[in-house]
């Protein structure tokens, strides 16, 4: 209840400061990032594994949706296809780590992320390569959704559905098993939990949610290019989960708001700097990196997390 109230107040402040259209289009992005963040928080926060390739799953969702939308497929066919393919990529990425866990996931998801980025650049005949891909507006039941209000409503509705699903999963037998695997793998295996299958399940569901976020992202941005889905995006999503606090699902929502607002605050700051202080892109990278370091050092459990440190790894 308190969280809802805070969100409402924040929303009103945003509308008052930024104007309704701008605030609404930003809220569409916050909701989209939050869906991807929910997926990653299943993998990182619940199952206690590392994914360095979440940006690539989002990219697969975005590109599949973009290509099918260009080909004229209706969204209720193309969106499930995009989500399914992203989930399949998540399953493939989870295979090497099924047996090994821990670092193997970091390495295999890193490899998948770099392969997907390379594939998007090189497979020019389909993806348009580095030149990018223009995506038509989302069209639901004959209605073209292109304004900020429509985008915000669709994203928020899907976020609510995704959040409800995650809440159910986390509260269910699966969620308890994930936390058991996270805390102590040997003990989890001893009570009959199939650790490998559960890890894979976390990656399938997490990558599927990232794919869903990618579907929305493709339409909201209307233009896709491979470098949007590089390692930088994967790390931004990790930061999103970390900022909000990985141990709780609601952390993804707070993290998404911060991650969307941060680059804009930083660019306000760099615009105010005198030009001879060097290139703005360098200062932006510097400021973002510094924030990451400070948050990790000062609030290791996330800004929304008052509990103990999130996701301490066993072994």
């Amino acid at each position, binding site marked *: 209840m308190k969280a809802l109230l805070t969100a409402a107040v924040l929303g009103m402040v945003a509308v008052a400061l930024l104007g309704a259209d701008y605030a609404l289009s930003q809220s569409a992005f916050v909701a989209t990032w939050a869906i991807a963040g929910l997926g990653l928080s299943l993998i*990182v926060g619940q199952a206690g594994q*590392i994914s360095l390739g979440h940006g690539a799953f989002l990219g697969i969702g975005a590109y599949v949706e973009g290509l099918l939308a260009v080909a004229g497929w209706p969204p209720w066919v193309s969106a499930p296809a995009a989500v399914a393919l992203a989930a399949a990529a998540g399953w493939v990425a989870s*295979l*090497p*780590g099924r*047996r*090994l866990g*821990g*670092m*193997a996931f*970091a*390495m*295999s998801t*890193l*490899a*998948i992320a*770099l*392969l997907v980025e*390379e*594939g998007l*650049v*090189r497979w020019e005949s389909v993806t348009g390569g580095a030149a990018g891909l223009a995506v038509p507006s989302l069209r639901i039941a004959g209605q073209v959704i292109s304004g900020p209000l429509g985008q915000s409503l669709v994203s928020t509705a899907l976020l609510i559905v995704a959040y409800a699903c995650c809440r159910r999963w986390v509260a269910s037998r699966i969620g308890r098993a994930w936390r058991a695997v996270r805390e102590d793998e040997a003990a989890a295996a001893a009570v009959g939990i199939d650790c490998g299958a559960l890890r894979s399940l976390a990656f399938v569901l997490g990558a599927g949610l990232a794919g869903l976020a990618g579907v929305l992202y493709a339409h909201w941005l209307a233009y896709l290019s491979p470098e949007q889905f590089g*390692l930088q995006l994967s*790390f931004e999503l*990790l*930061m999103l989960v*970390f900022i909000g606090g990985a141990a709780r699902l609601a952390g993804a929502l707070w993290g998404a708001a911060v991650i969307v607002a941060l680059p804009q605050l930083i660019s306000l700051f760099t615009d105010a700097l005198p030009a*001879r*202080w*060097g*290139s703005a*892109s*360098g*200062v*932006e*990278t*510097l*400021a*973002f*990196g*510094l*924030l*990451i*370091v400070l948050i*990790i*050092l000062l609030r*290791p459990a996330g800004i929304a997390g008052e509990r103990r*440190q*999130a*996701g*301490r*790894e066993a072994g």
Partner: protein
Amino acid sequence: MFAQVLTSGIATGCVYGLVALSFVLIYKATGTVSFMQGELLMLGAFAAVFAHDGLGWPLLLAFAGAVAAMFALGALLERSVLRRAIGQAHLTALLLTFGLGMVLRGAVTAVPAATHEMHRLPLPFAGEHIAFGAVVVAGEHLVVILATALLCLGLGLFFRFSRAGLALRACSENPRVAALMGVSVNGMHTLAWALGAALAACAGLLLAPMTFVFPGMGLIALKAFPAAVLGGMSSLAGALAGGLFLGVVEAIAGLYLPEGVKDATAYALLLVALLVFPRGLFVTRGA
């Protein structure tokens, strides 16, 4: 032709191997997955450019100065920031090093002199061709291979015969027992980061004559992850061998396979290695 491609592959593999070596060294000693080796490599190369072009130091002195400066920077970063990540989740430390890497990359990019012009590091024999009978080899590749061999010989001697080297190995094998034997575990963490940074800087100095010196040159360090996994993630010699293997495979793939496959080979190999040889391609005995 084939011999030239092979030596160029071995030379690139040496750079991969050195970065992988620095990564595994840090990972084994401190348990931290470092995502900033590429930035350390880049900074090392820039430090040498600054000392050579900016301060007018002779080349060898500039190289030594750059490596020493990076050694100090590694120790300083461990003492001030990275130490706090010890004992935390893998992910925390990984994000911390990624953030620090961004700080370093951003700081270099923000300096106008670093981005507005191309920098080169002259190296002895660069641009020359050395003929062994019918086989012609590019000078810079030969220098890189020889320098790597010397560096590895030095490291091998350090780990086998020096007190600090033995202590560092003991600490990587079992920190508790090492501490009971009177080894300062904290000190070894600092040493591991300092050595890791210095090694990355060496890789940067060797890479510099093959490419330009620019803020994005650290991207090559991503290839260190496949190299480290191919080497089994826990062996220093394995990491070096993994890097060499990767460099050669990439060079051969570039020769025979279509454009673009070359860059993907490393990551495809990484996936295969994790699936089929999770302990690395080589039978390891520790470093």
